[in-house]
């Protein structure tokens, strides 16, 4: 899976699960302030991402450092690489 695939699929989760317009899905968008998710929405996001990518995110400590959409895309990319090793 390429970086572009990961970015596209992560963005798809935001569009499908939260109906956020594609134009707002820029890497520097803050997930809380710009995209408007709260802690409960994050639980839904994690479930949707786990389903989409077949990875386990929930117990990963690195999730706590994620602030922007770009951070999230890079995190998923790292996870996919780790699984692929």
């Amino acid at each position, binding site marked *: 899976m390429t970086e572009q695939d990961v970015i596209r699929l992560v963005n798809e989760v935001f569009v499908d699960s939260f*109906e956020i317009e594609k134009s707002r899905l820029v890497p520097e968008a803050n997930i809380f302030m710009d995209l408007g998710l709260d802690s409960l929405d994050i639980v839904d996001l994690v479930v949707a991402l786990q389903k989409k990518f077949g990875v386990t995110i929930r117990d990963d400590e690195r999730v706590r450092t994620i602030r922007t959409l770009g951070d999230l895309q890079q995190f998923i990319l790292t996870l996919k690489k780790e699984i692929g090793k």
Partner: protein
Amino acid sequence: MRFLRIAWLNFCFYPFFIIFSLIAFVSFGCLIILSIPFLSKRKIFKFLRLAIRWYGAAIIRILPWPLIRLEYKNFGQNDPSGPYLFISNHRSACDPFLMGVFPYEIVQVVNIWPFRLPALGIIAKIAGYLSVREMPYEEFAKKTLQLIDAGVSLAAFPEGTRARHKSVGQFHSAIFRTALETHAAIVPVCITGNERVPPIGSPFLRPSLIKIHRLPAITWEEYKTFNAFKLKNYCRAIIAKEVLLMDQT
């Protein structure tokens, strides 16, 4: 002249606020304690919440009048019957008192600090008010479900904290998840003019006209296809649009 009006308002309001609060706490407290042997727990809670509503309405409608006035418009005459989920924008510490304009048994969903207020915090706890940040979401969901089943309306300020500017902040989704669980009608409430009662960072009230608009309820039929995220943003957009109009007029 402006300074004199502010001085007069606060000089009159705060002493009466303290005296009135003491009288209200003692008299309502005695009435409730005396009624314990004769009334069911449910009726005592109902009476306590009614007393809080009267207290709140008196604090905000009578004590600061005429320098602080309330203009309440109800656009929800055709709403289905309750219980309701009242959701409001939040600019002022006086907002919980403003919920006293609604003639229902209401439990408010509050942030941490109201529970830490002397006397008022204790009474809010006894009345079953919900401190949403001090309980796991599962417990919050269970309690709100029980309240709605018992016919009790809920009032929440989904921004979570007072707005520091006139736009409406991002909403938290907890109360909207309650809506999706209970199918209760959501009533958007828009409040303006309250940002000076008192302004953030000052204890002094300013003369003001507080406008409260109760908008038509959003029924389960309207939102049943939404998820919590879409519902909170749908409600936020309705409130933000009305608040903008209210600020301009």
